[in-house]
């Protein structure tokens, strides 16, 4: 079958199709418009819950820091974790705005990449968690105070505190390296595994699809015979 036959066949089909299709106006009037965005509502709901959790965590840290502003170790720990939490809050609410602004009339590849990137946002939260790893001692200080009302910093030996400081410094390059490695173009198998295991199949599938679209867009001149 020649190229032109495809088009002739399709033209013939298209011209007869209108006669075979009827609009059911009664069914259209009954349609619930909100139903169509169900898949977006699910995404929106996830982000709202995440955003609320970040707001609560940020507020608790702010209260903790204010109540203990005279004790430097509590104030510094509260501010450090508060910064991460605030970044998370801003990022999550930014995502909510992006979901609400998603425009289905955008070009196909642009729209699909935007949508799939929205689905992979949990990966950014995960990266933020990695970046906060060198500050793990702030969690310990606040945790002990909040749960046991015990000042672990004031009651620990200087050698133990020093070893934690050294460990924290060692974690900085590792965290930055992991932060950079965890992205859509991850090449190493173990990084891919890490993403899949921590973000679930949804993120893995979205990343694969984004890469497929990027590949689709760039296969330009290299394929010309």
């Amino acid at each position, binding site marked *: 079958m020649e190229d032109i036959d495809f088009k002739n066949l399709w033209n013939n089909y298209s011209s007869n199709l209108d006669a075979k299709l009827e609009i059911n106006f009664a069914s259209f009037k009954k349609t619930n418009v909100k139903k169509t965005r169900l898949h977006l509502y699910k995404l929106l709901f996830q982000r709202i819950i995440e955003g609320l959790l970040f707001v609560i965590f940020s507020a608790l840290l702010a209260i903790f820091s204010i109540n203990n502003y005279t004790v430097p170790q509590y104030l510094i720990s509260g501010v450090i974790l508060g910064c991460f939490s605030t970044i998370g809050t801003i990022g999550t609410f930014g995502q909510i705005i992006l979901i609400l602004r998603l425009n289905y009339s*955008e070009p196909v590849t642009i729209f699909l990449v935007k949508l799939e990137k929205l689905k992979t946002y949990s990966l950014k939260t995960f990266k933020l968690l990695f970046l906060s790893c060198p500050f793990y001692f702030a969690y310990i200080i606040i945790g002990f105070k909040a749960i046991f009302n015990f000042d672990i910093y004031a009651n620990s030996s200087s050698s133990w505190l020093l070893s934690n400081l050294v460990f924290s410094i060692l974690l900085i390059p590792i965290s930055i390296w992991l932060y950079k490695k965890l992205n859509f173009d991850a090449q190493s198998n173990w990084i891919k595994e890490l993403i899949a295991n921590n973000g679930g199949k949804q993120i893995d599938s979205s990343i694969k699809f984004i890469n497929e679209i990027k590949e689709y867009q760039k296969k330009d001149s290299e394929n010309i015979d």
Partner: protein
Amino acid sequence: MEKSFLKETETNHAFLKIIEANKGIIYKVSRAYCKNEEDRKDLMQEIIIQLWSSLAKYNSQYQLSTWIYRIALNVSITMYRKNITRQNKTSQLTDSIIYFDENLVTEKENEITLLYQFIHQLKVLDKALMLLYLEQKSYKEIAEILDITETNVATKLGRIKQNIKQQFLAHNK
């Protein structure tokens, strides 16, 4: 109140005219992405509602058909990228907004069914490309709808057409 009601009625009327004039596009895109009839009804409904929701954002710099293709393809790929049937995921529709009269079968129906069968085997973006080609869209328009270069459109179409042609030939042997 009366003014806004009149405006709403006018918009509804204009929208229904758009759907009536472009029902073929909605049906063809849905059929390319859904093998199952119930899923197709569901998809056609989703496309129409998304068209309705996006109407306020319509940019007249684009042709109306370009706008419809973009929305129809974006909804279809979003919902049926993984070739899954959604029958158990959403409520079953009792009525379809666009009704297809099966009794009015054309003489080339078997060839069309075969062509759809080959289109179903393509990857989601290749499906869109082939569909737009069959719909007589120029390479420039296809490039605009998909946001890929015209060279890319030409290269990929050549490969897809060759592939489908071979499948037709193999089938007719």
